């Protein structure tokens, strides 16, 4: 068991190492560098050389990679080019803001997804299932920027219930912030909930069709007791992994949603730093987002391992 956990963590670290290589190479071959962007028309001769020296761009690429990686492991991502601020300080509040958004969406989304998934599975092909499944397909497939735009159009502009974009600074009190983030949270939660509800549904249906559930029915176990005691615990276990992947996938969707609602989170920073050619920030963002992805997956893997004795032996055999 311990061996397995260590192996998973090692694999995750290797993945992150490759991600850092990919982003480093990717940003390295991007046309134009920090200095040409920063100096604009004055980018030649003395000034350019001075800038290269100041930012340490005059040493070979692999040396820069090594020093960057060593610093990054210690949490130091260097300086952002646009604000001349340490990236650490730029990232801090952004991460906090995105976390508020994401965790609100997760806390709302997961219970709703569970209920919807179970209801649609138990009433399979009946009216509740058909109705809910249709809605989830819509919620799932429509791009984030469309659902967000529609939410703004209907709730903020036509009904005037809530503000359409986040206008207050995010360090105001929670009650002041709340009406501003309701719409973005709904926009994010909608897609996530739809995905999870569908997975829970098919997982429950699979278990309901299994032999031991049929046996329980034959033995005359009361329906709801069977559902809660025999079906759900087994059906929800495989869902953990998929939920983790959905959350991780959401990292991309959050970017778009944050832009639509003008919310100062990590997502908007991604767009800003790429349009400003702020390569150090792009690198830092890539590695941070990838670490979130890898750790969520790792966590889900470990949770499934702990909760499922069968999988444990299976893995060891492999």
């Amino acid at each position: 068991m311990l061996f397995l956990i260590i192996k998973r963590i090692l694999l995750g670290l290797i993945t992150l190492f490759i991600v850092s290589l990919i982003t480093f190479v990717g940003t390295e071959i991007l046309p134009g560098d920090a200095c040409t962007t920063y100096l604009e028309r004055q980018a030649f001769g003395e000034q350019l050389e001075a800038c290269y020296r100041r930012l340490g761009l005059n040493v070979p690429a692999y040396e820069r990679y090594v020093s960057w990686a060593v610093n990054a492991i210690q949490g130091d991502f260097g300086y952002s080019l646009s604000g001349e601020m340490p990236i650490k300080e730029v990232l801090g509040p952004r991460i906090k803001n995105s976390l508020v958004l994401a965790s609100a969406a997760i806390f709302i989304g997961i219970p709703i997804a569970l209920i919807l998934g179970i209801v649609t599975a138990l009433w399979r092909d009946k009216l509740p299932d058909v109705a809910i499944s249709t809605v989830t397909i819509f919620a799932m497939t429509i791009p984030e920027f469309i659902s967000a735009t529609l939410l703004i159009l209907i709730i903020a502009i036509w009904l005037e219930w809530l503000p359409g974009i986040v206008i207050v600074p995010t360090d105001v009190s929670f009650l002041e912030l709340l009406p501003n983030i309701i719409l973005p949270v709904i926009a994010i939660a909608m897609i996530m909930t739809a995905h999870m509800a569908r997975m829970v549904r098919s997982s429950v249906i699979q278990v309901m069709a299994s032999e031991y559930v049929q046996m329980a029915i034959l033995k005359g176990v009361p329906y709801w007791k069977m559902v809660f005691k025999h079906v759900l615990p087994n059906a929800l276990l495989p869902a953990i992994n998929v939920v983790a992947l959905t959350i991780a996938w959401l990292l991309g969707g959050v970017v778009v949603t944050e832009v639509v609602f003008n919310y100062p989170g990590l997502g908007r920073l991604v767009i800003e730093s790429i349009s400003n050619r702020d390569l150090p920030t792009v690198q830092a963002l890539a590695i941070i987002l990838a670490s979130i992805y890898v750790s969520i997956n790792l966590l889900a893997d470990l949770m499934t391992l702990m909760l499922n004795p069968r999988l444990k032996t299976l893995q060891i055999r492999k």
Partner: protein
Amino acid sequence: MKLDNIYQEEKKSNFAKVSEIIITMASRPSGFIGLSILIFHVILAFISPYIAPYDFKAINPTLMLQAPSAEYWFGTDDLGRDVFTRTILGGRTALTITFFGSLIALLWGGLLGIFCGLVGGKTDDIVMRIVDAFLSIPWILAMLLIVSLLGTSTEVLIPALGFFYGKGIVRVARAATHDVIAKDFIVSARARGHSNFSIIWNEIIPNVRDAILVEGAMRWSWMLLGFSSLSFLGFGVSPPTPDWGLMISNARGLMSFAYWSVIAPIVGLSSLIIGINLTADAFAKALGIDRSTKAPV
């Protein structure tokens, strides 16, 4: 008699097989709706340049933000351009780029996945680590990097999208290959001394084709989503090309008093994505593959 039947089964032409699958797909309401929407969009993409009532880039300051009327069915946008014209033309670029992009994704992802599943060992380990690394970079960040690196011309976007969305197919193809690799017919093909290439071509591909095709169909809708998100964020096709993502992002600021110019492209893009999704789902069901347990990687 019985042998004869088996023989008949084998001899069914490709055309018959395909039409059988399409009939199965269309026999479910959701599949029928999906197929109809998709076919509608494809036909529209082909004929829209000929039926468009106005020039998509004709700017007319006297006609700014007109409400829908008999003359301008969906109204006009902030530059006085006809929204109906731009909407029916808006899917062409996206549909073409993502269709060929998915084909490329299918090809390289499928072949690499099968190859990795077959050879296993060190090669497989290394390739899968790299694929995992690419999977863990959020798609939007990677797409933005690719686009700012290579630009947004069609010749660049098709292979870029194809490469980027193929990485998920590698996993699916590899898993499907693992499922068949232990079967007797592979073992006997090896025993007969067939080469890896021959085993892949004659034994594995026919058996994993369905799973990979379904995955490719799904990728198509995600690629479309990614492509329009890029346009929406201002990193995709450049104006004045009519494109739904771009149109939505332009019209968004004015939607408090000109909602029509944002509704039309929203309907266009949403219906196409839903159409592709329903079709892919029906396709999966017609082939007997359950897709709903898969995560959107």
